[in-house]
């Protein structure tokens, strides 16, 4: 202890006790030689108790931990260490207040352990502890909001099924996978027959209802997690069926056609059936027909066109390439 | 440094894909037990051949090796010679490796290889 009071030392002392982070200094034998007010408050250990104590005596649970290893690295090798909050949730028992302490509800911490050279003494080590609880809370909120936003931007506003953007991402992914594994990838282009006429006669509101109903019914027929149905255009839907060959895809397309018809949505002005029907074009990318995405979509489109030309409410298949 | 009593000639088999590692281990062993025999192998596969030929009293096996790998080789050696002291050498000391070593009846030593650590290992062969 100095007997003559040095004003600059007083200032440093005051500053150290005013900073809003924990500062602990250990000497070469791991005894506490500096313990600021922030630490006293949040560790609930007063300075008199901390000074001179062995670090592991104060924090026995930290024996063998990353903090322990970091102190070692600083004292022995002169290397600093960073302990991120994400990987080391709350190594020190530090609390916002007494109530939190009772519940062991710790502050979220970011810790830095750095070597400190001291004149006429072997190396010391400085431990700085930052309370990052607020930042962590904010990040968690941001993450949750992003999840919500993301599900919204991939979903079609009207029908709630996947939108065109989602389709574009999915077809890219599934095409790459099919290419890599040599598995067949089928694409169905589904178009509601005489939809313009439906809108003209029943009004756009009913037209929307019709789209919602058809989208719900057809997407409900998807069985596997990788299958996707998306709203491709105004009254057009696209269905991605990975690991599905032409025969299976055609079978699925026929089931879809039948299901749409079975919805029995009255449509007096659409062809002969008296109800809303769909036309479907099927195309499959296989090892034999190893085409790119554009060619696959083109083939499904051509098949769809043929279905329309051949009377609608039917399924047509086109081999791509 | 631990006291080692010079014994009748024993054979230690060192298995490590690093030549420098093998050289250092050989050096430490011969410094502690000048009369002993040191046999080297650079791969797990080679260690099996060398073991059958040299019939070692102790095997020091590096874990991280290409091909068969230290643990697989140790497993095979264990089957060939159930009572043979085999010690795994690794820098990556984690519970998964420890448990596997224990289950196979293998010893365990942390890298880097130092003379003190070698002395501890030689004690397993009665050195």
């Amino acid at each position, binding site marked *: 202890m100095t007997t003559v009071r040095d004003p600059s030392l007083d200032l440093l002392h005051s500053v150290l006790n005013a900073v809003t982070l924990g500062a602990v200094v250990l000497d070469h034998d791991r005894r506490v030689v500096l313990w600021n007010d922030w630490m006293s408050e949040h560790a609930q250990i007063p300075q008199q108790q901390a000074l001179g104590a062995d670090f592991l005596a104060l924090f026995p649970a930290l024996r063998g931990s*990353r903090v322990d*290893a970091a102190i070692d*690295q600083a004292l022995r*090798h*002169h*290397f*600093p*260490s*960073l*302990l*991120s*909050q*994400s*990987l*080391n949730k709350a190594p020190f028992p530090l609390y916002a207040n007494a109530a939190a302490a009772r519940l062991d509800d710790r502050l979220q911490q*970011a810790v*830095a352990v*750095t*070597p400190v050279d001291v004149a006429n003494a072997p190396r010391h080590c400085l431990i700085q502890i930052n309370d*990052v609880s607020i*930042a*962590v809370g904010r*990040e968690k909120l*941001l*993450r949750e909001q*992003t*999840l919500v936003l993301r599900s919204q931007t991939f979903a079609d506003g009207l029908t709630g099924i996947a939108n065109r953007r989602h389709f574009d991402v999915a077809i890219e992914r599934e095409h790459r996978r099919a290419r890599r594994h040599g598995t067949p990838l089928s694409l169905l282009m589904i178009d509601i027959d005489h939809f313009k006429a439906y809108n003209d006669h029943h009004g756009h509101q009913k037209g929307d209802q019709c789209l919602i109903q058809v989208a719900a019914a057809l997407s409900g027929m998807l069985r596997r997690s990788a299958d996707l149905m998306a709203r491709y255009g105004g009254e057009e839907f696209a269905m991605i069926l990975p690991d599905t060959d032409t025969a299976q895809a055609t079978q699925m397309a026929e089931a879809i056609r039948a299901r749409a018809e079975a919805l029995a949505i009255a449509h007096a002005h659409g062809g002969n059936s008296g109800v809303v029907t769909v036309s479907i074009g099927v195309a499959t990318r296989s090892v034999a027909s190893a085409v790119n995405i554009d060619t696959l979509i083109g083939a499904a489109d051509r098949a769809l066109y043929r279905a329309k030309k051949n009377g609608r409410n039917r399924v047509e298949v086109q081999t791509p390439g | 440094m631990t006291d080692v009593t010079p014994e009748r000639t024993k054979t230690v088999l060192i298995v490590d894909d*690093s*030549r*420098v*590692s093998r*050289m*250092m281990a050989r*050096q430490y062993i011969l410094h502690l037990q000048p009369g002993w025999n040191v046999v080297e192998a650079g791969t797990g596969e080679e260690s099996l051949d060398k073991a059958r030929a040299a019939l070692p009293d102790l095997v020091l096996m590096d874990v*991280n090796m*290409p091909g068969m790998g230290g643990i697989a080789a140790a497993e095979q050696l264990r089957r060939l010679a159930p009572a043979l002291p085999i010690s795994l050498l*690794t*820098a*990556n*000391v*984690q*519970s*998964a490796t420890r448990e596997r070593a224990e289950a196979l009846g293998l010893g365990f030593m942390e*890298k*880097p290889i130092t003379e003190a650590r070698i002395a501890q290992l030689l004690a397993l062969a009665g050195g």
Partner: protein
Amino acid sequence: MVELSELENDALIEIFNIGVGQAAASMSALVSEEVRMSVPSISFISRADAARLLGSRLAAEAEAPDRICGVSQHYEGAFDTDAILMFPEDKSLELVRLMVGETVSLQELTDMEQEAMCEIGNIILNACIGTLANVFEQELRGSLPEYHVGTSDEILGVSGSEPDSVVLMLHIDFALDKHQILGYVAFVLDISALHDLKEQINRYIARAMGQA
């Protein structure tokens, strides 16, 4: 360029394997899962060549070839070097996700995850240089980690070195729970650092051969 003898190459690879082995053990303790890391090969190349190598090799694995994440630390003492751990951005994202255990996916690395990446770099780089320091029986001082993202040229340039500086490049194989991630550690060395390093390696080898 710098040519290493077979023995010098062997010695360095073994030293770095010990380093990353210890780093893997530390990381395993953090995530309570088995972590394996190894250094299959090393090379000495010019900084410009290193940038090109990283650009093409990491690009083959990544979706955005120009986005590389680097964590750098400066070391000085027995020799001076800037050490940089590098992954393509999506791989570093994958690595952090694996370590942190988050299942939500975001496009950018958030602050907290950058910090996690810094810690991973800190663990690996300290382990590598620490082992070198131990083996050479020399003192080295290190700095706290810094996070960077950019092209391979930009990342290697953070050391402020010249394009003709030598880089000791380590190829790192990282494995956690069936995920395999390829990364690199680059030690940027100027001529005197390179000389110091070679001298240390030779002393080490001499000791290994019982000649020191």
